[in-house]
């Protein structure tokens, strides 16, 4: 053993990585050869293919669930960066500006920092509940992503009770907050948890009632169907048919997402950090991500229900036709034959030079190398833009996704704007507002909608 151990200890760190990888490579090559020789591997592939084909529903679910889990954290990163930057600009500060261009990698470093922090469990906490609470809080909004239609055909599951599922799942977050508040063995946490329970349950009612008007108009609870009902002109968006419902929904969503001015559960000037007081490290990170994913799904749901989801606000094709502009982008690269090779070999070089030479000639103080680097970067940007345009024109889903994200991030921006502007309401004002104003208003909205539907159908 010691004979083997001595050379191992003399290896450089890189060697310690490469050597096992080499061994693995040799093993895999041998295994593949043996597998193909015996016909084992083709049989296995056929078997797995048949299995997946037979259970396409399960495969679709697993792929969708993995996809939303993978997208939830980057979404949170984007919104965190956006919030830091937008609030900073509103406060006349610079905001994050160190990591990456304009500080754009700040939230990633932030996330890594949270990962690296000590995960501390204080004395006296109810350990299993304390450990589970962040996971429950984080999973609630992430599960809500599963039914959101991002673009035509791009959605996790097309459920016909999607809206009901959404409210059921996102209502779970209150459970996580209460678990955190109760198990933390801290009075600030306890007050925060109880406030969360009172607030979120109160605002669920106007939130749900405001949506019932949309359900009555659409005649379905499938989010995909609701979006499709709003296709057509901009006037088909439910925002214009349900203005009161739209306003109630947005206010209630603010309270549902624990955002300013309704962020009483973690009121930092009163309850230190509310339910999250005793949390540190990645457990706190989960609460943090949950809040921002929550902001995203609430904005996305507002978009889907009231702003026509992935529908464009205006139809661009007639305009283009009237101007006589036509895009024919049926690329057939195979037609180029050997020319394709030349294109791949010479295209980047010629393109870089074409951009770099004018720069070099105009900016006499730049070296040629610098101009070349700038030209190469610009060429890449142009190519990326060209690919983007080609994608957008070729695939309907890309345009739809673009419109969906534009609308959603508009609402995210509204949330951030409110956070920068408004103070916090008091708990009695909050509850009074929910029960005295929001609930009657949403009932009136419901009544008027029902009446209008009957009257319209009678007139016809």
């Amino acid at each position, binding site marked *: 053993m010691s004979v083997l151990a001595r050379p191992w200890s003399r290896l450089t760190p890189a060697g310690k990585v490469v050597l096992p990888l080499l061994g693995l490579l040799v093993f895999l090559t041998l295994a593949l050869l043996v597998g193909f020789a015996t016909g084992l591997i083709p049989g296995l592939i056929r078997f797995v293919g048949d299995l997946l084909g037979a259970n396409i529903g399960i495969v679709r679910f697993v792929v969708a669930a993995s996809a939303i889990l993978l997208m939830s954290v980057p979404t949170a990163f984007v919104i965190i960066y956006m919030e830091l930057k937008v609030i900073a600009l509103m406060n006349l500060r610079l905001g994050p500006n160190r990591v990456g261009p304009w500080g754009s990698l700040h939230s990633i470093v932030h996330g890594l920092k949270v990962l690296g922090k000590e995960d501390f469990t204080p004395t006296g906490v109810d350990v299993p509940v304390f450990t589970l609470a962040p996971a429950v809080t984080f999973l609630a909004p992430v599960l809500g992503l599963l039914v959101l239609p991002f673009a035509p055909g791009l959605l996790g599951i097309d459920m016909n009770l999607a809206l009901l599922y959404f409210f059921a799942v996102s209502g779970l977050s209150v459970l996580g907050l209460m678990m955190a508040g109760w198990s933390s*063995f801290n009075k600030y946490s306890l007050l925060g948890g109880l406030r969360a329970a009172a607030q979120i349950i109160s605002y669920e009612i106007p939130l749900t009632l405001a949506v019932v008007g949309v359900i009555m108009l659409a005649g379905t609870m499938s989010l995909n169907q609701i979006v499709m009902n709003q296709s057509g002109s901009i006037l088909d968006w439910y925002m214009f048919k349900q203005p009161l419902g739209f306003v109630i929904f947005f206010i209630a969503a603010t309270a549902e997402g624990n955002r300013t001015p309704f962020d009483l559960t973690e*009121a930092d000037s009163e309850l230190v950090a509310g339910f999250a007081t005793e949390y540190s490290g990645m457990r706190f990170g989960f609460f943090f991500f949950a809040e921002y994913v929550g902001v995203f799904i609430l904005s996305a749901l507002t978009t889907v229900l009231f702003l026509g989801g992935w529908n464009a606000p205006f139809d661009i094709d007639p305009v283009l036709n009237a101007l006589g502009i036509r895009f024919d982008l049926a690329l057939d690269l195979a037609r180029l034959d050997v020319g394709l090779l030349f294109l791949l070999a010479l295209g980047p070089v010629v393109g870089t030079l074409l951009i770099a030479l004018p720069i070099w000639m105009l900016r006499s103080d730049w070296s040629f190398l610098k101009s070349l680097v700038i030209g190469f970067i610009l060429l890449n940007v142009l190519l990326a833009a060209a690919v983007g345009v080609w994608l957008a024109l070729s695939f309907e889903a890309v345009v739809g996704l673009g419109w969906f994200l534009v609308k959603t991030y508009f609402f995210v921006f509204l949330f951030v704007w409110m956070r920068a502007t408004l103070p*916090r309401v008091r708990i009695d004002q909050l509850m009074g507002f929910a029960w005295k104003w929001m609930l009657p208003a949403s009932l009136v909205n419901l009544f008027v909608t029902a009446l209008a539907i009957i009257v319209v159908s009678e007139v016809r």
Partner: protein
Amino acid sequence: MAQQTRVRSLDDPDVFVESPATIYDAVPPYPPRTEREAEFYHLRDGEMLINLGPQHPSTHGVLRVVLKIDGERVVDLDPVIGYLHRGVEKICENGTWHHAISNCDPLEYVASMFSEAMPVLACEKLLDLQVPRRAEYIRVLAWELNRIASHALFMGWLSLDLGGLTPILYGFIERDEIVEMLNALTGQRVLFNYLRIGGVNGDLNHDFMSRLGDWMSHAAEQVENQTKLINENEIFVGRTRGLGVVDRATALRMCATGPVLRATGIPYDIRRAHPYSVYNELEFDVPTREEGDSYARYLVHVDEIKQSIHIIDQVLHQMPDGTVMAKIPRWIRPRPGRAWVSIESPRGQYGAYVMSDGSDHPFRMRIRDPSFFNLSLVGHLMPGNLIADTMAIMASLDPVMGGIDK
């Protein structure tokens, strides 16, 4: 607490002990010493103690308040002060009169131009010293600038404690401009140590005057912008109007001064009631409000900023020429006797009662800090309100713990 908990022993972390009053409770680990303590720490059903501070985001320094709460409602409270106690009055007795100036500086660390005036004015009174008029005008200029800096910060803190993020930064922009200006004048940003017995340390300089000119050109507009964000804000007004109402009798009985007193409708301002320095040559209003609530206190602060800008404008127009230091002996030994001086600080009447025994150091110096008296109103204002309101009330009284703990 009714239910005892098993906690890790502080002596041996591996051992769990059935703790009496656990380390997590705000209950003191000794039997009650007074009747009030016994009453306060006796919890009825459904009540609990919550410990606010000394390390809490919104207690303005190191004030600790033990709140007895029933749900969200505050039943009773026990403020604990003294975390910042330095024994300034005693320290002053052990140094010369000049040392007392810098020792008194950090008392009111948000507006230290006022607290450092205490030994200066008292010594001048004992010496029967005539301060040059230019020095008096420069003092008024520095005081009013510092008052605006303090009030701008107050407006920010109040809305920060109500959950608004932005106004505090606008307040700091205002304060930073003034503080940089005073830095150019005095060489210090926070603890200026600028006033001297018989005048001020250094005449106005070019850096200061150019910064002051820049600032004066947009000061009024900047205040307007800042107030526009919060004055008419429905949530801000809803949170502060009718909250923490002080009536005139209580305010007088509790010796409240400054904006807290003026918000109840009593136009008592030392600058007008007992004019000192050159305030009787200057024209200004004493803004008052009738309501006595947090919102009225906030509005009084806003109006006072405008009046201070008006005063600065006059000072700059009337500034006489001359020296900025009177001729005084290097070794100051005032006559034996007593002197009472008081000035209007941003928080109210800042006073000092000083005894001299004819030596070169104060024999006894007692400082009256307005924050202490204003803060004692919390016992009247908080019970019956919600936890969230304790912050709004405390912030609207604008305490500075340096002066309270002395």
